[in-house]
């Protein structure tokens, strides 16, 4: 009970991750606008977004441990942690030159497919059950659709549309996560079974 009182609410954790994804989105947008050659002119820059991605994967593990209250919830958070780390590690390997094939970029596409599926599978309620349910459905479908961008980047690494689309996905992800509340209505709809809304 004391520990529960000390723990931050789940929505706070969503906002922290939203902040990380927002930074990730801005970094990827900048890379998309200037192109990979200019981006690689400083040795540390290619490591920037993969490191952020990997770090967020590591940070997802304590979220899985302390903020999940059902098996399916735990599996979903665990899968996000795994794919964030996989995607970050593969991109770090490519940036360092340890991995040579451009097809390692497909791990980003895989990460979005797994993440989107996890969002959709672990949300048991309908779209308008509550704001969290609506956001889970929206996030899931957005991730699945946007998986096409890193897929295209694996075959056409210089595609401006694919790079911008991939970057915009993270900005959108951040906006949707910032919209999250533990218990809140969505578009005036709110199930009586969702709990008591606050602020």
């Amino acid at each position, binding site marked *: 009970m004391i520990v529960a009182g000390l723990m931050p*609410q789940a929505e706070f954790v969503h906002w922290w991750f939203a902040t990380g994804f*927002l*930074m990730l989105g801005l970094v990827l947008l900048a890379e998309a*606008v200037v*192109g990979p050659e200019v981006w690689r*002119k*400083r040795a540390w*820059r290619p490591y920037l977004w993969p490191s952020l991605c990997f770090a967020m994967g590591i940070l997802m593990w304590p979220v899985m441990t302390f903020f999940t209250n059902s098996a399916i919830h735990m599996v979903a958070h665990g899968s996000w942690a795994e794919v964030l780390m996989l995607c970050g590690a593969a991109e770090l390997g490519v940036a360092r030159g340890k991995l040579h094939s451009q097809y390692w970029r497909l791990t980003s596409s895989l990460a979005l497919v797994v993440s989107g599926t996890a969002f959709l599978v672990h949300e048991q309620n309908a779209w308008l059950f509550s704001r969290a349910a609506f956001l889970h459905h929206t996030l899931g479908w957005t991730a699945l659709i946007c998986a096409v961008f890193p897929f295209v980047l694996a075959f056409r690494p210089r595609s401006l549309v694919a790079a911008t689309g991939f970057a915009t996905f993270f900005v959108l992800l951040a906006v949707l996560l910032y919209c999250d509340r533990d218990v809140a209505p969505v578009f005036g709809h709110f199930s009586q079974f969702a709990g008591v809304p606050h602020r």
Partner: protein
Amino acid sequence: MSADFAHELKRHEETDARDGLSRVARARIVLWLGPGTVLGGVLWAVLQPWRLTLLHPGGQGVWWLLVEPPLYVIAVGLIFRLVIAPGVAEDLLDEEPRR
């Protein structure tokens, strides 16, 4: 046609989308990403002032005082603008123009 030349030609074909914008315009976009984000955070703070519990700290728990999402957005924009964007814009403007 040699493979190297064909590859170079292909690379130039694929850069067309970026070449449509001048380097100065692209540098401006990069430099405005940060301020644009800051503006988003400020607008959010104005539209939902209750999200900034520091403005009315009475009766708030420690987490509610530490977690200020509009300020996070502003912080991300500032960090990007001050730490990342200047170097990117500088490198872009220093780039040799393509023939």
